[in-house]
Structures are given as structure tokens and as C-alpha cells.
């Protein structure tokens, strides 16, 4: 069974291209556009990995991460950011994010990170 992955980004282009790339790589990706939707989605399905954008309309990526932890979501979270800085990275790590990748994403880097995250989670 292919690993289910949730993509959270407000950019439709990113959602679509990431979904296509991950599907190409054999994952089963879902995509949502906001933190609220993300929280809803994780309540409905158990994802192995969540690719979470920091900048989101409504509740931010980091807040979403915090709330995910509060509902004991055990998915490996990889933060994606267009303007990542150290503070955000540190905060995200403190909240249990697995990794931090910067936009624009490359297939290689993204797939590698997702695989690492999934492997980490399975350990």
C-alpha cells in the first residue's frame, strides 16, 4: 500500500505539481489549501507525511502544526517555506517538524525528504 501524503499549500500550482510528482513516485497524495482543511483531513485519514506550507491564509503553518500535535497526529511533518528563516526553522523543529525544505522545490530534494520522513516515522 502506497504511503498517503497530505500537501498543504494555498497555491494551486504547487498543490497540483506536487501531487503529480508524488503520484509519479508512487505515493498517494492528497492536497488541501489551508490549515483548517489540513486539520480536517488528518482527522479523516491517517497520513504518513504532511508537506506543510508556512504561509497560509487563516491559521498559519506553524499553528496548524501545533494543533496537529495537540490532536496527536503522528504524521511526519515537512515544512515548506518560500522565505524560511532560522527562527521559523527552530520553532518548527521544536514543534516536531521532521524537516524544512525551501521553495522552489525540486523533485529530487522533495522526494528524498519525503522518503526520509516516512522512514523516520516507520522506525
Amino acid at each position, binding site marked *: 500500500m502506497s504511503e498517503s501524503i497530505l500537501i498543504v499549500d494555498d497555491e494551486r*500550482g*504547487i498543490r497540483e*505539481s506536487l501531487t503529480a510528482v508524488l503520484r*509519479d513516485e508512487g505515493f498517494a497524495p492528497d492536497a488541501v489549501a489551508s490549515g483548517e482543511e489540513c486539520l480536517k483531513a488528518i482527522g479523516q485519514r491517517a497520513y504518513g507525511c504532511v508537506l506543510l506550507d508556512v504561509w497560509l491564509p487563516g491559521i498559519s503553518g506553524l499553528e496548524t502544526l501545533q494543533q496537529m500535535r495537540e490532536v496527536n497526529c503522528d504524521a511526519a511533518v515537512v515544512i515548506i517555506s518560500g*522565505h524560511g*528563516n532560522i527562527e521559523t526553522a527552530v520553532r518548527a523543529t521544536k514543534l516536531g517538524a521532521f524537516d524544512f525544505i525551501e*521553495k*522552489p522545490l*525540486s523533485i529530487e530534494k522533495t522526494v528524498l525528504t519525503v522518503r526520509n520522513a516516512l522512514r523516520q516515522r516507520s522506525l
Partner: protein
Amino acid sequence: MAESTEHQLESTSHSRPRRARAWVLGAIVVVLLGLIAAQGLFNLWAFVPVETGSDTLLLYAISTLNFVAFFVFSFILLRTLVRLRRARHARQAGSRIQTRLLAYFIGLSLLPITAMAAFSYLFLNRSVEKWMGRLPENVVERVREQQREIVETQNHRLRETATLLATAIRAKPQSEWQATLDELQSTGEVTAIEIVSNSGDVIAAARSQIPSVNALELARVLEAGRRSANPTDGNLSDAKGFDLASAALTDSTRLILVPRRFSDADANDIIAGSQSEYQHLVQRQRKVRLLGLSTLGLMTLLLIFASTWVAIHLARGLAAPIKSLAEASKEVARGNLSHRVTTPGNDELALLADSFNQMTSQLEENRRRLEAGAAILKEKNQALEERRDYIETVLNSLSTGVVSLDQNDCVTTMNAAATSILRLSEPPPEWAKLSSLLTQEDRAVLERLIKRARRAGRAAEQSQLTRGSAVNSIPVALTVTALGGASRGERGVVVVIDDLSELLTAQRAAAWSEVARRIAHEIKNPLTPIQLSAERIARQFGVRANGDDNGPGNGHAMTTDDEELQRVVEECTSSITREVAGLKYLVDEFSRFARMPDAQKSNTSLNDVVTQAAALYEDRLNGVELHLDLQPDIPLAMLDGEQMKRVFVNLIDNALEALTSSNEGHVSVSTKLDPQREMLVGEVADSGEGIPAADFKRLFQPYFSTRGRGTGLGLAIVQRIVTEHGGKIRAENNVPHGARFVVELPLST
């Protein structure tokens, strides 16, 4: 007079230490005056005739005493007058009035004394003359009486003798008469004896020899006797020369008898005695008169002394309080208000002195109050001064310019910030017109605002101060507040000028930062699907071309068209990927500017930072000389080493870029300490073309690049870092050419 002297002495004795002497002298004067008065009154000289030696001695003793007294008093009086004169010359207080009083008193007392002396002199003269005139008259009277008695006795005896002789002759017969007469004549007691008839015929006569000198006199006497029985001629019975007595002999005859001639010796004796007595008396009269006159003179002098003395004491008594009042006034005028007048007695002068003392004590009290008030005022003034200093210090330490103007728009205060904002080389002189300090455009802006503030109380506006040229123009916030008080239109105002350039720069930087963040976000987001899609296309094409069974066209050999297509796809996707990377770099630069982290400051050596920055360019100088001039002993400062390194890297980079076209020249980097301002100063100067005047203002704005390449964020980042360190950066043209960037960093932050 003596009483009043005593009274005066008494009244002045409190203030005079030599009162005992004055008393003694006064007593002497009184005694002497008493003596003289007693002599005059009781006519002592009448009872004490100065005939004996002891009397003369007494007279001389008194005279000597008078003389001595005269000298003593003269001396004392003279001394007093000299002292007074000296005091007058020295313009001592009270000396004038004392002199005047003295003159009045002496003049006043001299008048009656002189009159009295003159009167006494006349009276004395008269008395002495009268007295002396009586003495010789008495003597003459006595002498005359005695003489008369003697003459009468002699006449009586002569007549008796004549009668006796007549009786004797009568008894004799007429014939014997001649013989009898001769006999009688021979006794020698008779000068001539005759018997004459009543008709005057001589019957018998006898005559003794007489000197011829007297013969005529005798004949005349005899003739008179012959003519009349009772001759009336006084000379015949005056006991002088020849006297004559006649006695009846018979009825028709008379006997005439002329006795021996009288000499004048007895009467002369008496007269001579009287005359010598008179002479003696005359002599005595001179003496007495002299004595009387000298006594009178002395008494007059003593009176004058006494009156003068009294005058002096009176004058002194009057002048002393006036003097002490005058002295006190002087003291008071000199500022010594604690001085008090002490005047004995309780007369009007003492009352005046009391009033004066009250006045001075009130003045003193007032002065004390005034001084206390002045001290409080001084304190308040000092407090005000301190407050003023404080306000001035506050004003001067403000970065906001504050200018206060009076109702005529003259500058009353201007703080340092205002001076610098208005680009004045030095603080303007007080009362300079504001309009004289500004350019026409700036003046118009300010005057409009001031007018509005005077009308409405307050006016504010954001504006540009051109400060002479467009290059110097800065954005400012102007607030004008009218000062309370005077009527509208005549009020002073306070102009507050905020230099907004830094604020605007910061705001602009913040806006740019926000823009950068947004751009980063907005660009990077679409870059992700572009990148992913390009990679995916390339990947899908590669798989198909390599015969991967997952792709469409499975099992087909690649045609030339396919190969061509794959080449184009690869070229395109790699081009897309490259451009995406370029865009990412550009966006990352923006991001770096946008998300500049807070400085992590620690004690860092600026020299180390500069050295590390310079080291990065060691192999990239391309012939340009990079010269470091670092002051060796500058202290450590609180700096973020990494950020500061970026500052100098950017500045050196900038300088090297300015020299790129020429590939020669030099860049110098220096550090030094400005101990006065406690600032570290770093400078990066190049020998390039310098900065055009118009560019200075925009130099540090993001996205401004003179190079036409690069992100245009280098100097903006530099300024941001420097500002976050509490420092300042400015650009200026280097001498002789090139640009110079000066970074000033405070030591304390």
C-alpha cells in the same frame, strides 16, 4: 550764669570724660567772680587800705592768681577754639553748627558783658575821681580854719596889747608919750607905734628899723591905720606881713600898733603837709584805679570766658547729638543699619535721636526682610536657572529641532538639532530674524504655518525643507504652537521641526522589506510548480527516450524527430531550471534583506571584522590596491561580527566595483576611535569617479544601483545593519576624487 554753666556741664557730663576738670575750672571761675564781686560790692578797699606791705602782698597775690587764671582760661579757650577749627577743617560732623552756635552765643554774651564793662569802667572812673577829689578839699578846709583861728587869736592879742598900751600911755602925760613910745619900740617886739589924732595927724611915733623891702608895706599899713580907727582892709588883720591894731587913747587920739612882721611859716607848713598828703593820695588813686580797672578787665575777661565756656558747652550740648545724628546718617548711608545714636537727656534732640533709631531699626528690619527675600529670590532664580539649564540641555539633546520666536519672528532660542536641521554653520545670534536664516521657499512654508498658528493656536504640516538646493532637501514635520499671553497676532511661537528623513528611510526600508518578503513569496510560490513541472517534463521525456516501459511510446525506437524533441525539451527544461535558480537567487537576496535577523551583539574587535572582510578579496583584487589603515588600540565594541563583516564586505565590494572600469587605483579601509564622541569610525574610500550629487539622497535606498547590475540592496543592507547597531553611515566624496563611506558605531551599544 554759673548755674546754667553747671546745668550745661551736668547735661554734657555724661558724654564727657573730663567732667571733673570742667567742674573744678567752673568752680574756680565762680569763686573768682565771687571774690571780685565781693570786692566791688562791699568796697573792701575802703576797709582794707593798702598801705601796709602785707596788703600789697595780698593785692599782688590776687593779681597773680587772676593772671594765672587768665592764662589758664585763655589756654583752655584757645585750645577749644583750635580744636573746633581743626574739626571744621576736617569737616567733622557737627563742627559747623557748633561753630555757628558758638559764634551766636559768644556774640550774644559779649554784648551785655561789653556794655557792663563799659558802664563799670565809667562808674569806676567817676567814683574814684569823686573819692579822690574830696581828700584835698578837706585838707585845705582844715588848713584854712586853722589859719583863721590863728589869725583871730593873733588879732585878738594884738588888739588886747594895743588897748593895754593905750591904757598905760593914757596915764602918762602927753610929754612923755614920745619917750614911752620909744621905750616900747626898743623892746623890739613892735615894728611901729604911733599916737595919732582922730584926724590922722601923728602926735608921737616910734619905729624900728626894717628892711627897705618892707618899708613901703609898712607905710601903707600905717597910712591905713591913721586914716581910720577901724580899718576894713582884711590885710591888716590876716596875720601875714604887717598887721595893725588900733586903740583909743583919748577922745581925740588913738594908739596905732604894728607888731613885728609875721612870717608865713606856720601856714605854709600846714599847706605843705596837705599838699604832700594830696600827692600821696593822687598816687594811691592811680594805683586803686589801675587795680579797679584791671579787676574790672579781669572780671570782664572772666565773664567772657565763662560765657564762652557756657557757649561752648551749650553748642557742644546741641551739636553733640546733631553730630552723632549726622555720623549715624553717614553710617546708615554707608549701609551700617545697626548703628544707633546714643543721646543723654530727654529733650527734643533725644526724641529726634530716638525717632532716628526707630527709623534705622525699621530700616534694618526691612533690609533684613529684603535680604531674606532677595536670598529666596536668588534661590528661586538659581532654581529657575537650573531649570533653564536643564531645559536647555534637554532641548539640545533632542534630535527634534526646537526654535522659539517672539512676536516679531525673532529667534529667542534655537537648539542644536534645529541648527543642524536648518543647516546653519553656528547657532544664530539672539534676536536674529528667522527669515534671515532661511531660503525663500522654506521661509514661505514656515511663515504660512506661523501665521496659521497665531490664528488657531497650533498648526502642523509635513513638508520639505529645501535648505538651499534640491540635493539638501529633507522631509520634515513642522509643528508651530503659539505661546500664550499677548493678544492674537502678537504672540511668540514655538516651532518644532522633526527631521523625517531617517524615519522615512526606516519606513521606506520597512516597506521595502515587506515588499521583498511579498515578492519572495509571490515569486517563489510559482517557481515551485515551474521547477517541478520542468523537472517532471525532463524526467518523463528521459524515461520515454530510455525505453522505460512506463512512458507512452513504449517499445518504439527513437526516431530522429524524437531525439530532436528530447534535445529541445532538455535544453528548455534546463534553461527553465537555470532561470528558476537565478530567480531564486534574486529572491533570496530580497529575502535576506527582508528577514534580516536581529543583531547578535557581543564584544567584538572592529579591526578583526575589517581584516576578515578584506581577506575575502585577497585573490579578487585584479590589480587594485587594497590598503588597511587600522588604529591598533581601539577598544572592543558591542557588534554582531557576522553582520558587520557583511557591512564591510558590501562596502569593499562597492568600492571595487567603482574601480572595475579602470582596473587600477586603490581602496583604503581605515578604523579609528573618536574618543570625544565615544564612537568607532570605519571608513572605506576609493579612488573612483565618486558619487554624483543627485545620487547622494537615494544611495541607501533599496534597489538603487549605479552599476546597472546587482540587486541594489547592498548599501540598503549596510545602512540597515549600521542603524541597528545604533550607528550612522554617510557617503561623501573623497579627496581628490572617489567616494568615501563613513561608518560611525557607538562604543556603548
